[in-house]
Structure formats: structure tokens, C-alpha cells
């Protein structure tokens, strides 16, 4: 697959869920050719010369992310990139977010397989596009571009991207989002920030979920917050329980002000 531009037979599927028949969208219109010549012979005797390239490896993704950002700005659309390990409660948090939001919300769901999460979002009352990455471990700017084309978010609305559950890879890929939010649940352990510093270090906000379970697990909230501040001294942290609703007002307020 071509993970940089997301094209070709890369196994990525983009599905608008709940539109009667689920439509699959694969097409993209940018030209993309890989010259495939014979492998060269690097044996001695062949004169070579150095070509300075000095190009960022992720330049293409970053360019596309910038394009997404400009497109979203023009429409007054706010995008929150929600990242976490699998099972932290992102989808439950989103279900509650949709129910309590004062502005329209739509969701781009990223998972390797299934339409489960998009169906849950749809049932919660919001429009949802499912991106299935196949073997891919993160969303990139092209996948989000394709999903935005399917989603066509309305002016002034909020789009939440629920990234593939993974505390490593998604940190490196700019999607064109307005803000990055990392969700961590108390059942995962208080040691996660320093174990996954790239992810937590790139967050604009950390939501600590499942706080209703704090009496039952060995999770030291002070240590968690102190470790986060070693990565980002001014990081904002909002404790919530998506299940009981505790702290969700603070979360909604944060979203309103993004």
C-alpha cells in the first residue's frame, strides 16, 4: 500500500454509515506514478553522484494535512483528533458528547476492521464515516481527506476523528486537526504518559476516563498528572467518567472553546 498518499490497493475502506445503503468510496483523483525499472546493479565501476534532497519524510502527509486544515478553516469546522489505546472509552465518550453538544457533531471513525463504532455513533444521533485501515495502525491526512469528502460536515460544526486505538503510531501523523486530545482510562495504569511520551507529549488536552473505577484500581492520579507535566508543563487534564457523566460538563466546555 502507499501509506503516504493512501492510494491504490492499500486496503483502506471509507464507508458512510447509515445512509440507507452503505457506500464505499475508493476513488481519488491525483496522479501518482511509481516508476518501476529494473533493480540496478550497484557493482563497482558504476559512477554515481550525490543528489541533495533535504526533504521531510512526511512532507506529503504534512502538505495534505495543511490542505485539510485550510479547507476546514474556510468552513468554520473544528476538528478534534481523539487518540488513545484500544478500550479507553473513546466511543462511549463520543456517544455522551453527541447527546450533550450544543453544535452539530459528526465523526470519522478509524479502526482496522468493522463498522461497529460508526454504527454506535449513528445510533447516538450523529453522522459517521468509518475508515477501515486494513493492516494500517493509524489514520493519515489522505484517509481523513477522503472521509471528509464523504462526510461533508456542515459549516460551523464539530468533527471528531476517533483515531485507530494505538498509543504509538498516530502521534506522528498530522491530519489537519484543530486540536489533539489523548484519552487515557484509569484501568490502563498511571504509568502510561512516560511510557508513550510521543503521544502524550503531542496532546493539547488529556482526558482521564473511567474515574468511577478509581476505588477499584491502583491508579495514582497525582503521579499521572505529575508525569504528564514532565512532558508538557502546561498540559490541561480533564478527569471524566463517560459512563456516569462525571466531569463531562468540563469536557463539553473545553470543546465549545476550541
Amino acid at each position, binding site marked *: *500500500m*502507499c*501509506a*503516504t*498518499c493512501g492510494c491504490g490497493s492499500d486496503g483502506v475502506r471509507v464507508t458512510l454509515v447509515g445512509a440507507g445503503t452503505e457506500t464505499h468510496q475508493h476513488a481519488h483523483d491525483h496522479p501518482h506514478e*511509481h*516508476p*518501476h*525499472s529494473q*533493480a*540496478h*546493479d*550497484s557493482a563497482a565501476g*558504476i*559512477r*554515481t*553522484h*550525490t*543528489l*541533495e*534532497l*533535504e*526533504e*521531510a*519524510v*512526511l*512532507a*506529503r*502527509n504534512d502538505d495534505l494535512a495543511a490542505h485539510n486544515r485550510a479547507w476546514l478553516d474556510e468552513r468554520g469546522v473544528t476538528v478534534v483528533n481523539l487518540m488513545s489505546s484500544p478500550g479507553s472509552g473513546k466511543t462511549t465518550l463520543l456517544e455522551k458528547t453527541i447527546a450533550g453538544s450544543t453544535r452539530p457533531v459528526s465523526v470519522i471513525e478509524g479502526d482496522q476492521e468493522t463498522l461497529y463504532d460508526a454504527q454506535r455513533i449513528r445510533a447516538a444521533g450523529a453522522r459517521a464515516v468509518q475508515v477501515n485501515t486494513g493492516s*494500517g*495502525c*493509524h489514520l*493519515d491526512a489522505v484517509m481523513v481527506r477522503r472521509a471528509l469528502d464523504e462526510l461533508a460536515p456542515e459549516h460551523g460544526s464539530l468533527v471528531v476523528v476517533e483515531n485507530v486505538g494505538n498509543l*504509538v*503510531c498516530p*502521534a*506522528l*501523523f498530522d491530519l489537519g486537526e484543530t486540536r489533539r486530545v489523548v484519552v487515557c482510562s484509569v484501568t490502563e495504569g498511571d504509568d502510561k504518559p*512516560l511510557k508513550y*511520551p*510521543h503521544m502524550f*507529549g503531542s496532546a493539547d488536552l488529556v482526558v482521564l476516563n473511567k474515574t468511577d473505577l478509581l476505588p477499584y484500581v491502583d491508579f495514582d492520579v497525582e503521579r499521572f498528572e505529575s508525569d504528564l*507535566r*514532565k*512532558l*508538557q*508543563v502546561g498540559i490541561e487534564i480533564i478527569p471524566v467518567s463517560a459512563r456516569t457523566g462525571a466531569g463531562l460538563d468540563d469536557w463539553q466546555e473545553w470543546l465549545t472553546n476550541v
Partner: protein
Amino acid sequence: MHELAIAESVVDTVLRRTEGRPVSVVRLRIGRLSGVVPDALSFAFEVAAVGTPLQGSTLELEQPQGEAKCRDCGERFVLHDLILLCPCGSADVEVVAGRELAVASVEVS
């Protein structure tokens, strides 16, 4: 395993810039704070290069160390990990090097 996606981006970048000419060496600058594992990237590069003019080429990695600048005392210091702490005790520091992820140059014939 984002190193595969990174390796594919490297191959795409080199192919676009060298227009199909045979490539014998690819030099990357991968900062020690970039979040990319050099061994995993080298492995993924071999796979990503198959069937292209980069197949069999040598991957050379320069790995600049992390450096930070303290916003409180102004000191510039080496950063071994992403724990942003200046020797002066301040955590208000800015990473100024070590996040590089670039194709520096290639050897073409």
C-alpha cells in the same frame, strides 16, 4: 509499526526526486526524539524498496541527538528523552533538535 509508512514515504520521495534513476545509497536524518526506531525503519525500507530502482540500495542513517533550550534560564542542553527538564529545574523547555525526519541525500548513477 509506523516505520513501514515512513519507509514507503521515503521510497516515494526518492522516486519522485530521482525520476527512476538507479539509486545505490539513501541517506536519512532520523532524530533520536523522532519516534522512529532505526532498526525497524531499515527493515521496512528493504521491503518498501522491492521492485523499485531503490531495491538493494544501502540505507544510511544519521541520528542527531535531542537538544532543548530552557525558556527560563536560556541554557541549551542535550535531551536524552522527551522528559523536558532543564538542569536548572525548569520544565518550561523547548525541543530544538532531535525530531528530524528527513531524506538528506541519495547516491544516483
